[in-house]
Each structure stands twice: as C-alpha cells, then as structure tokens.
C-alpha cells in the first residue's frame, strides 16, 4: 500500500470538496462560527480543529479493535477531549491573551459533531493511515469554510485583515461605512447560507426540504 496513492488522494479531496462536511453533511457548525469575527482567532480555531480531528481519527482507528461497542461513544469523546486539552494547554502557554478569548470555543471542539461523526463513521471501521487522511481532508474542508467566512466578515465588518487595515482611507472619506451586521451574529448566518448555496451550485448537491 502506497502512502499517497490515488485512493489516498481521493480520501482527502472527498473531505475537502466533494463531500465537504459543512455543505454535504451539515455537521460541526456549532462551536466554530463564533470565532469568525477576526481572522486571527478563526485561524487558531481552524488549526486546533485540524489537529484534533486528524489525530483523533488516527488514535481511534489504532484502538478500534479493543473498544467494546456499547461504550464506544464515551471512549471516542474521551480520546478527543485529551487532544483538546493538549491544544488548550499549548495555547495557554504560548498565546495567553488569545487563549483567554477563545478557550471556551476550543473546549467545545469536544462536542463538535464533525469530530464524533468522523471517528464513529469512518475511523471505527478503517486502518489508522486512511483514517488520518479522512480526518485531515474533512478538517481542511471545514477550515476552508471557516476562513472564507472569517475573511469576509473581517474585511466588510471591520475593514481589516489579520488586524491590518485594508480598506483605503479615501473610501471612508467618500462616505463608505463598515457594515456592522457582519460583526454581529446574523452576518455569519447569512454568509454561511450564501457560501453553502454557492458550493451546492457548483457541485450539484441538492437537498429536499
């Protein structure tokens, strides 16, 4: 078995685009949208979720034959929470100010249904390496949505990108005003709805009511 054969590439691309977890599976929207006001927090959240999802899938796949089936959900939650604690402790050690803002949402990666969905739906029945790639692909697909929403919210809502001003000064002089709905919660709902609509237009995925 090669490490990056055609099959392995397909697993990653499925998660990233063809079966994007947000648009296709409608999963894991919970904890992430709240951190999309600024790019910086969204990027940290995306990296944290990627780490937890890919290594969580690999860890569950490694012990999949030893997990009794009636307590498997609890075991998966425990494996995931150990990884989440690792992410949180690293953030607390190196980015203390940032960690104070998003510690709650990092903790909520534990109950992110995307993580449980992938460990339960894929990693429980597959060897470690494909499970790792499946987790990675799904996490990247998820992160791409997160970062797109965050970029749009920060540029149109605050006129900045990663904290640097990007809207030219003469725009403001000509009467341009930052759109404050983007900073508030409804902006994220509208943008997510629009992005899902665009993704489904391209991929042709449809849903009955």
């Amino acid at each position: 078995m090669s490490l990056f054969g055609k099959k392995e590439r397909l697993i990653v691309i499925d998660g990233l685009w063809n079966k994007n977890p947000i648009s296709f599976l409608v999963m894991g929207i919970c904890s992430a949208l709240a951190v999309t006001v600024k790019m910086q927090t969204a990027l940290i959240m995306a990296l944290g979720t990627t780490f937890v999802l890919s290594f969580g899938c690999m860890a569950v796949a490694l012990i999949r034959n030893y997990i009794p089936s009636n307590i498997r959900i609890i075991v998966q939650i425990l494996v995931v929470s150990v990884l989440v604690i690792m992410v949180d402790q690293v953030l607390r050690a190196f980015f203390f100010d940032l960690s104070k803002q998003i510690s709650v949402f990092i903790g909520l990666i534990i109950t992110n249904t995307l993580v449980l969905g992938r460990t339960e739906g894929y990693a429980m029945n597959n060897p470690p390496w494909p499970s790792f790639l499946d987790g990675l692909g799904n996490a990247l697909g998820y992160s791409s949505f997160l970062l797109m929403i965050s970029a749009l919210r920060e540029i149109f809502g605050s006129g900045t990108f990663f904290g640097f001003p990007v809207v030219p000064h003469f725009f403001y002089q000509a009467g341009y005003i930052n759109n404050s709905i983007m900073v508030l919660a409804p902006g994220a709902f509208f943008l997510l709805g629009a992005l899902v609509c665009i993704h489904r237009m391209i991929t042709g995925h449809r849903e009955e009511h």
Partner: protein
Amino acid sequence: MNHYITLAIKTIFTDNMILAYFLGMCSFLACSKQIKTATGLAMATTFISTMTVPMNWLLKAYVLKKGALAWAGLPGLDLSYLSFILFIATIAALNQITEMIVDRFAPALYATVGIFLPLITANCAVLGATFFMDQRDYTFGESLVFGFSSGAGWGLAIITLAALRKKLWYSNPPAPLKGLGITMMTTGFMAMAFMAFAGIAF
C-alpha cells in the same frame, strides 16, 4: 432577585445560545423539521442544562479550582487542566442516569422526551453553558439561573425555527438554497429580531 431576573432575560434573549454564540447548531438544524420533535428536544435540553451547570459548579468549587481540595488536605493542588474532561463526563453520566430513571419510572415520558437524551451529550449548548459558567465565575445561585435560562433560550429558538420551517415548506427557493441554505438565512433574520431585546433590565 432583580439581578437573577436580569440574568435570565439576558441569557434567554440577548445572549441566546444559538443566535448569539452559535452553540448547538447541529441538533438545531437536524431536529427542527417538526414542531413536536423540536419541543421534546427543547424540554430535554432545558432539564439537562439546569441540572449540569450547578453540578459542574460544585465540581469546580470543590475539586478542580486551585486550592479547592483543601478540605481533603491537599491545598496546593490545581486540577483545572482536567476541567474539560470532567465536565463532559458529568454531562454524559447525568444523561445516562436520567435516561435510565425516566425509562424505569415514566415510560410515557420516555417515549416523548427520553429518546432525545443521547443526542444531548453531543449538544454544544449544554457543554457551552458549563464553560461560560466557568469563564464568567458565576456564584452557585447564578449558575442555577444561568443553566435553566440558557437551556430555555435554546429551546425557544429551536421551537420558533421549527414553526418558521413549517411555513417555508410552501415557499419555493432556488434549488441550491433549499434545506441548509435557506434555513441559515432564516436563522440570521431570527437572530436580528432577538437582538431587539438588548438593553432590557430590571
């Protein structure tokens, strides 16, 4: 007393778990297709949230906080890094116990509400309420009020959305927007409406 009422109104309306913090989106979208399902889930979530937030407060105050184990003769211990794993364990265990009790003593209730209990372990709104309680350093009384009202606010939002989706049944949006897309936009408008409650206090 006024303080508690203000906290409850703020948590239910302005700081609503879904509409301001996006917590509990997954079951919010999956279980809002029928009002009956939504009501059952809302009641179960409110119950679990009211129970778990004060329980986790006790856990935090007497086990996890720095110096909290002084009553056991270990004043130097700081177990706060274990809080994530113990909070979720409390929620999972309480769900399991409630499910068994309801199944044993109230089979009729189990048929309507009990089937939703396993879903709630993975509901971000319940775990999120505990984390907010931890972060904002609520007192025991406040955590009781906060636990109830965060669950009630979540329940109110999901029942409202279920009613709106029923009306959406007769609408005819563009095909790619059907389902998730139009539901998210509707939720956005709901969030805007709930923001109108900002500033109400007693």
